[in-house]
């Protein structure tokens, strides 16, 4: 089963993600970028990383930048309630992130994106 990491500072989002994605994936979850980096170090085999954008301390983009330094060959997704911001646009164009999903997201769509080669 593919290992994926989901980072969101909202506990309910994390719980729901775990419930809905555990069926198809091995789901790792964390509430902050720091936690995410730690989980990645512990689970380097993780294929896909999904993160919220707005979080206290370190935001999604910053977290991905740090993670990518160590793990450049993984898929990074942003899942956010915001519309397409300039920051996200830049991140997509620079290839920092693969895709961006808006909350509320469709689980089906997200699963498809995770499974894409």
């Amino acid at each position: 089963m593919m290992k994926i990491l989901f980072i969101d500072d909202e506990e309910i989002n994390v719980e729901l993600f775990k419930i809905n994605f555990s069926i198809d994936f091995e789901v790792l979850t964390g509430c902050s970028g720091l936690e995410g980096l730690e989980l990645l170090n512990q689970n380097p085999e993780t294929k896909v990383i999904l993160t919220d954008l707005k979080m206290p301390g370190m935001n999604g983009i910053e977290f991905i930048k740090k993670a990518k330094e160590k793990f450049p060959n993984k898929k990074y997704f942003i899942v956010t309630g915001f519309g397409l911001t300039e920051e996200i646009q830049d991140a997509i164009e620079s290839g920092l992130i693969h895709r961006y999903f808006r909350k509320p997201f469709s689980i089906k769509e997200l699963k498809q994106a995770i499974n894409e080669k």
Partner: protein
Amino acid sequence: MKVKKDEELNIEQLQNRIINQAILAFLIIGSTSQIFETFRSIQFGFSIGSISGYVSLFFVVVCYIFRKRIPAVFKVSLMLFIIFYELINNLYSNSFLASVKFFIPIIPVFVSFIASYKKAFMVLTIYLTLYCFFAFLATNGSLNLEYDVNDYISSPSTWLVELSIILLTSVGLLTITRSFVESLSNSYDEIKQHRDNLEVLVRDRTNKLATINDELKSTNDELIDKSEIIEHQNQELKITLQHLKETQSQLLQSEKMASLGILTAGVAHEINNPLNYIMGAYDGLRHHFENKSFSENSEQIGVLINALKVGVDRSSAIVRGLSEFSRNSKSHDEECDIHAIINNSYTMLRNQMKEQITVNKEFFTSDIFTKGNVGNLHQVFINLLSNSNQSIENKGEITIVTTCENEKIIVKIIDTGEGISPDNLKKVTDPFFTTKAPGKGTGLGLSIVYNIIKEHQGEIEITSELGKGTTVVIELPKK
């Protein structure tokens, strides 16, 4: 009005004049009668009585010459004395035929000039007593005439002396009467003149009053005109004020809409999160529904249902907050729950808040209410929290403290932002004053906050220190 002083004659002067005239008459007629007396004396022989007549005449002459220097009392006394003396003399010599007795009626008149009526009567009584005394002597037969009565009454000089005395008395009385009548008539004329003058004066004053009254009337008319102008201007001012109020209200609303625009992005995110709960819960529940796996996963079902509930609650709270903020109610006696308004405002702003800002809420233990406009108070806290957020560069704290003292609600918003310079602090509530880049702020935020707080009978105080942060203290009346 002028009073002719020289014509004014008091009663004492009048009496003095009469006395002087009487002395003059006495002198003229006395001299005349003395001449006849002399003829009579040559015919009938000189007596002490006739010689004393010369003495008396001498005194009268002296008295008349010095009439202005001699006081009235002295002059009257002299005349009384001479008449008294002459009376004794005359009655003694001529008995019933004494002509001096004709002077008796005039005596009390002169005495009354220098003394009271009572005294005049007393003097008269003395003279009458003297007369009675001689009457007694004559009737008793003690007084005998030295000459033949027939000879005496047949002498023309006797008649002439008698005549002169009667004349003197009558002229005297006539003079006195005429003087008084004249004086009275003069007084009457004077009074009449005074009355006429007074009438003229009254007419004059009445005319002047009428003129003044006319002037007052025209002034009054002018005042009424001016009052109408003022009324008109007042009306215009009222209309202008009304326009101003409407403009202010529009300005308030447009500023609100401007902040609403800024808020929308954040609010969308804030709603998208709870919508994501609902979406996630829906997917989870559908999965279990399709696999008929509810019973094995009851714990998970609980989490999903809770997520649904939280999602709905949170999104509806945001929508409610938003509608409360944007509603354009003009009411000023809505019940305003301060904590709910602060929470709503914070909710709407939360997603704009920088990630490293910690917001501390130190709320009063019970709910606190003020009376006013819910939407406008939302705008106050949104503007203030938004300012605090913008003033913090990276990392910082915003502390919201609410307390209740006596009848006052105190809300403090303390931030650790960059602060405001003393110069700018004076201007922060001025309309259109802003330190933000063009397009980033209207410059109306704090000006509107200030006006809204004033409308709520509240006070706002802003203290700040550059580099340390800003504290806004709001006082509102407790409902």
